[in-house]
């Protein structure tokens, strides 16, 4: 146990006394955690730049954009259609495009559609957009739904008020109807008391018939006689006869008269008198009935008036009910699902959705190139620094730039081989992307150069190979963590974000994504490409400066490393 402790103690002593190792081993992870902690320790709203495209910037659209701006989202408005916005997603200028209709007011049962254009390859960003913008959108949807419901409630209230008013009218109508009913009942009772019974006497109508027949016969005879007289040239006898006949006729007529107007009771006169009496009775009854009828008519007039008024009131009620119906029908949104979800969202990916490999391929490529370039750059510099031939190289008539460049070229060759292998393998999986491969190779080449130089700088700055490799891995990890691959850089604090946006990893990955996923031409990404190339040149200059600055240090270090006695002498 003691031995174990002694060995452990010795190891710790060696580690701590090797300052750079201690610094890296102990402080590098702490530094890494500190940097990441500081970077992501924020409650700030995700720094999303949201493109809003609408046919025109109506109040509804502006209200929506204001809602987003209140949440500190950067809103970029596109009035020229959605295409420029989509291009800006591809270039990374905006994170999502929201395509809005002119108005968010729901006018029928069709919900309004809002299209979210997103880059499906940035999976973590899609989640962030859904989380952040989706909540604002839900809020807006809730508002619209609330407006619709309020509209319906307003109409119901209006109808209710109208119905209250109609209730009075209906009560009045009810009274009038009751009154009319009473009047009708009264008229009915009056009419019930009306006695119109009339019993006809049992007259012998045969007398009249006989008389009538005799008179007819007389009349006929007289008429015949009269006719005969006129036709013939009658003698006296004839004339006498005729006269006799006429006399007989006359007698018959007289008899008839007696029958009609005689002293007997069964004469026509008597009958007429009876009739007159009966008629008088009847007239009396009828008069009585007439009075009743008049009374009823008067009552019925009242009833008619009441009914007329009722009809008018009913007409009014019908009219009012029509109005209520109109009010109720005035809401064109009648479907519950439209009221509950008046806005419909649709997520539209801006690129064809391939496999996950398609999405991750640019990141993977950059990741591989970054780590390999960092490690190679560091390793080769360390190999050269720790090479036994370091001193001999010093005496060679070779400029240090040439040495540095040779290390870079060595890396480059290895990088090219690596890229060729990766792309070669990728050909089997990403058959649709052949055309992009030359540009991809160019970007990887530049990225490899940048990270090679970073690796070389680390190599020049650290003494031991292990420490330098650890430093380069730490550097790579830091770049990875703040690249947006694991966590979106939009979640970083604004200060850190502005620094992180300069991360060559971020720039390179963005370039590769545009080329590989969106098939953008090189001409559209030249600016970022120039930045990346500038990084490479700048880092090369930094290496030259470091090499010049640390040259004497390297010489001293070499002497210490290769001449232990010298070191002992120095200690003395």
């Amino acid at each position: 146990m003691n031995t174990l402790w002694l060995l452990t103690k010795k190891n710790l002593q060696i580690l701590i006394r090797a300052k750079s190792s201690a610094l890296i081993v102990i402080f590098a992870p702490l530094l890494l955690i500190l940097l990441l902690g500081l970077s992501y320790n924020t409650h700030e709203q995700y720094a999303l730049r949201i493109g809003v495209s609408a046919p025109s910037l109506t109040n509804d659209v502006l209200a929506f954009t204001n809602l987003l701006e209140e949440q500190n989202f950067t809103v970029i408005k596109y009035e020229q259609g959605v295409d420029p916005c989509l291009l800006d997603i591809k270039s990374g200028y905006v994170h999502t495009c929201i395509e809005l209709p002119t108005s968010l007011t729901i006018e029928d049962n069709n919900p309004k559609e809002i299209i979210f254009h997103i880059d499906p390859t940035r999976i973590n960003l899609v989640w962030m957009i859904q989380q952040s913008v989706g909540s604002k959108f839900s809020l807006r949807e809730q508002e619209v739904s609330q407006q619709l419901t309020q509209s319906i409630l307003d109409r119901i209230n209006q109808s209710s008020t109208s119905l209250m008013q109609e209730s009075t009218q209906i009560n009045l109508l009810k009274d009038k109807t009751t009154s009319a009913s009473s009047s009708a009942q009264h008229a009915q009772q009056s009419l019930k008391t009306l006695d119109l019974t009339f019993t006809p006497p049992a007259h012998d109508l045969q007398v009249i018939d006989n008389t009538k027949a005799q008179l007819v016969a007389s009349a006929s005879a007289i008429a015949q006689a009269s006719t005969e007289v006129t036709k013939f040239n009658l003698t006296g006898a004839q004339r006498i006869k005729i006269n006799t006949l006429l006399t007989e006729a006359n007698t018959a007529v007289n008899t008839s008269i007696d029958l009609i107007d005689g002293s007997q009771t069964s004469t026509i006169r008597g009958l007429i008198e009876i009739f007159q009496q009966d008629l008088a009775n009847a007239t009396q009854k009828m008069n009585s009935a007439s009075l009743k009828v008049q009374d009823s008519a008067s009552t019925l007039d009242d009833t008619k008036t009441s009914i007329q008024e009722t009809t008018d009131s009913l007409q009014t009620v019908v009219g009012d009910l029509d109005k209520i119906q109109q009010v109720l029908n005035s809401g064109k949104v009648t479907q519950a699902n439209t009221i509950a979800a008046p806005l419909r969202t649709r997520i539209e990916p801006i690129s064809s959705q391939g496999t996950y490999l398609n999405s991750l391929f640019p990141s993977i490529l950059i990741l591989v190139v970054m780590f390999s370039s960092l490690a190679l750059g560091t390793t080769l510099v360390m190999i050269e620094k720790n090479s036994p031939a370091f001193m001999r190289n010093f005496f060679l008539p070779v400029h240090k730039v040439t040495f540095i460049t040779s290390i870079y070229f060595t890396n480059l060759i290895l990088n090219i081989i690596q890229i060729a292998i990766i792309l070669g393998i990728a050909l089997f999986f990403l058959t649709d992307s052949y055309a992009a491969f030359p540009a991809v190779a160019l970007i990887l080449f530049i990225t490899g150069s940048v990270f090679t130089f970073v690796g070389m700088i680390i190599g020049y700055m650290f003494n031991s190979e292990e420490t330098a490799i650890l430093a380069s891995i730490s550097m790579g990890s830091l770049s990875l963590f703040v690249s947006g691959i694991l966590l979106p850089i939009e979640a970083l604090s604004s200060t850190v974000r502005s620094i992180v946006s300069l991360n060559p990893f971020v720039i390179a990955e963005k370039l590769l994504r545009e080329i590989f996923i969106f098939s953008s031409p090189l001409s559209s990404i030249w600016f970022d490409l120039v930045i990346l190339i500038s990084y490479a040149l700048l880092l090369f200059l930094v290496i030259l400066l470091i090499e010049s600055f640390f040259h004497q240090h390297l010489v001293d270090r070499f002497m210490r490393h290769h001449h232990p006695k010298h070191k002992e002498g120095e200690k003395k």
Partner: protein
Amino acid sequence: MEFIQAQGVSKEYAKKAVLRDVNLQIEEGDMLGIIGQSGSGKTTLLNILSGFVEPTNGQVVYYSKVDQRPKDLHGNFSKIKQHIGFTPQHSSIYPKLSVKENILHFGQLYNIPKDTLIANAKALLQFTGLYNDKEKLAEQLSGGMRKRLDISCSLIHKPKLLFLDEPTANLDPVMEKEVLRLIQEVNKQGVTVIIASHHLENIENTCNKLAIIKEGKVQSYGDIDDVRKPFLKQNLTINIKTGKDKEKIIALVKKLPVSKIVDQGNQLVLYPSDDEKALAQLITRIKEEGLSMSDVDIHKPSLRDIFTKLTQ
């Protein structure tokens, strides 16, 4: 004539003086040995003289026959370094390259024309005895062979100055001798050689000039005999193995310029006050007197003696 001259050179590391006011001149064809204890500053001096390390104060002047005027070595190092070859203590070659590849690699970097380079390389390989092993990887060579390869790499561009730091360190005696022979051959070909070593005997047997350095200061510098001269009076002895004429010889010796006589029985140890005269007179007088002696041995002070004296 070309030469290299250190003028008041001093060097500090972390404010600690490693070298102090070093002045010396190395001329064309010289073979200078820098000796000193470990940590005395000899490697630092070698590195400063070679241009690898810049002095804190003073300067190293390089005089070229071509330019006919002295130049600051460090200020004009990029032009002068092609005349310099350097073989550090530890091999300064690429272990993963073969013998031939190492030589050709460094030769090519000196921009030597290909044909010349191949011829030079072949000659060097033969000269250093590595020709048969030219295809071997450097890491597969023995210590001595590796040292020879190192020297070959330092000579491929035919330098005028060859600096060697502990050239015989970690070599067995046979290899050591072989390497020293090689260095001498190189020197004979007109290359000025500067060696830093703590192998005093090797320096004594190989070099014509010597710089003894102690705690960063040159204690003695010059031709080996010149360095030795101040120590002869105190350290030169004449050892005579006497026979029956011992007493006569003692009597004779007392008449000579001898400061001290030590009788060791069969041998007399004489400390002459003047080395040259005493020895000559002694031999003449013994011959004249017809005295018998079995052996006369002159013991001059060795470099080790001088070094010990100077560095104590």
